[in-house]
């Protein structure tokens, strides 16, 4: 076994701020939307925390964006451009999670600092980071001060439409978080991926090629 450095420090900082922030956003979001069911915080406190943490996460997003735009590590998000190879690789990964993992087979993807995501992760994270997260943040900013951004709010079809988009993405990210929390336990050991996100290093088989 060898240790491979796959999570640079800025990425780890971004990730853990993001993780903590999202937990707070989901908790306060539930409190704001379901005041009749949950009353841990006052509505106003929940709204204020939700707003502030939202802005922290927007700043954190730019830390992530800046890091990948201005370093050569952006390759981790570049998909395989040959469709045939992409689908073959993706299918291999699906087969692993759907069957091979139960037989104790080795993960077909061997991460490096330049290619740390498997084909499914690349597709998923591109959609999340470049599409869903900006829409979530954008609608959040509009809802933070509806009057200030009334022109944009009206352009999008009104405050109810903007809120519905925000809530739909909240549902998507809540689902994503549950899946994410399970998938990170599917390393060689249950805690391997979590440790890697803390230390930056992941243990990879000697036999594996990048």
């Amino acid at each position: 076994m060898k240790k491979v450095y796959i999570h640079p420090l800025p990425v780890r900082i971004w990730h853990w701020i993001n993780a903590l922030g999202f937990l707070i956003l989901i908790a306060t979001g539930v409190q704001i939307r379901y005041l009749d069911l949950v009353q841990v915080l006052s509505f106003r406190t929940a709204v204020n925390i939700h707003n502030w943490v939202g802005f922290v996460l927007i700043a954190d997003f730019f830390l992530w964006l800046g890091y990948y735009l201005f370093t050569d590590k952006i390759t981790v998000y570049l998909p395989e451009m040959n469709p045939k190879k992409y689908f073959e690789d993706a299918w291999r990964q699906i087969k692993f999670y759907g069957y091979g993992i139960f037989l104790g087979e080795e993960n077909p993807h061997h991460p490096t600092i330049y290619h740390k995501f498997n084909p499914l992760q690349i597709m998923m994270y591109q959609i999340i980071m470049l599409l869903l997260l900006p829409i979530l943040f954008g609608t959040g900013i509009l809802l933070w001060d509806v009057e200030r951004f009334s022109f944009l709010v009206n352009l999008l079809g009104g405050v109810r439409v903007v809120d519905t988009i925000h809530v739909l993405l909240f549902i998507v990210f809540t689902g994503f978080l549950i899946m994410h929390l399970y998938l990170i336990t599917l390393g060689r050991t249950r805690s391997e991926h979590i440790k890697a996100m803390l230390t930056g290093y992941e243990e990879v088989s000697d036999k594996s090629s990048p």
Partner: protein
Amino acid sequence: MSFSGFQKSLLISGLLFLLVVLCGPVAHAADDASLSEDDVACQTCHDGKDQLVKKTEAGESLSLMISTKAFLASRHNDTSCTDCHEDLDEKTHGKVKVPMESKRAYRMSFQDSCTTCHKKNVAKYKDSVHAMMLSDGSDKAPTCSDCHNSHTQLDIKLLEPIADVPCANCHKDIYKAYVKDVHGLARAAKGKSAPICADCHQPHAIQAASLGSGIKDSCLTCHKDAAAKHEVWLPNSGRHFEAISCPVCHAPDAQRRVNLRMVNAVGGRQLMEKNGVPQFEQMTKAADGKDAGLSVAELRSFLKEFNLENVDNKAILSGRLEVRSGVNAHQLSEKSKALKDCKICHQAGAAPFQSVVLTMAGPDGRAMRHGVEKEVLNSFTAMGTMRGFYAIGSTRIKLLDYLLVLVVLGVLCVPAAHLTANYLFKGRREKLKAQRQAADAAAGKRG
């Protein structure tokens, strides 16, 4: 400190002078006013011993007595009787009976007389809801002299008891609420520093309070720092100011409701029905099949029909939270009692969202309303019609709640199924692992 005799008399003289300066002009004007010779002639009969009473054709009795004393103390003391009663014929007046249709018809005949001197105020009045009601044929809409007794009208600079406010003649219930609310109590205690009807409702240019945003602007005229003060503690305060009328929070005992105003799709101005084209009432009634308020589909169908008939003036809905009646709007409390608990509005089943009405301005300048089922506030399919109104929690779309539960349960099923499969494959996995280890060991020996 002691005063000499001279200083004392100087102080008293000074105080007396001040008193004369302060009270002089008012007293002077009243004392000095006198009737012209012609007016004296009029008052010989109209303030004489015999009580002059005229019977109208409608059977009412109209007293023709004018108190000279009250007239001379009035704002009109420098006008002559014939300035307003210009059509009187000296030769026949009092000798030949002139028929009078009714008191109201007689009062209305004097509208033009007021215009002679009060052009600006009459012009304002002509744009008011009162004048619109009048032109719409109302027999209750006030004319000038319904509010202003031209023979006793005092200078507006003088403070009259609040009970003398003419608005109370028609708006009795609202006046009763006003005298008990924070403004009415302050007016009685502090005089002109506190508002009375016309201070908020604009004298003469009165518009229906439930339409437009004139009343909110009136509040902000005195409470200039209200926006800044709310911004300190109220998230999204700009939106709250836009979508909620002030009494919703500042009249804590009031009943509240959602008002869906029909506004122009371009520009957002409140739509007003044309005179003689009663679309609103007819179309809402036609759409409201069960007469129990418009359902989601009925509201959509009404708007579709309305917009088909008004292609150049299409309507969209602009929702706002407001109190249910004019009486409620005049139950304003002290600031410390105003509602500040977000829970009152921002949770499912909140009281203000249990009543919903659709509103359009009528041809007489007053609001026309039709009930709407409260379910439109939580319906996904009403998103198009209700797009401009949303209160977190209380008007949340139920379908999204079901979707959240479905997604969470669905996603939880994945690890549950995966872990189960992992457990079921345990035997086979360990067997394969043993085989792999044996193969590795064999390969090691060969190596």
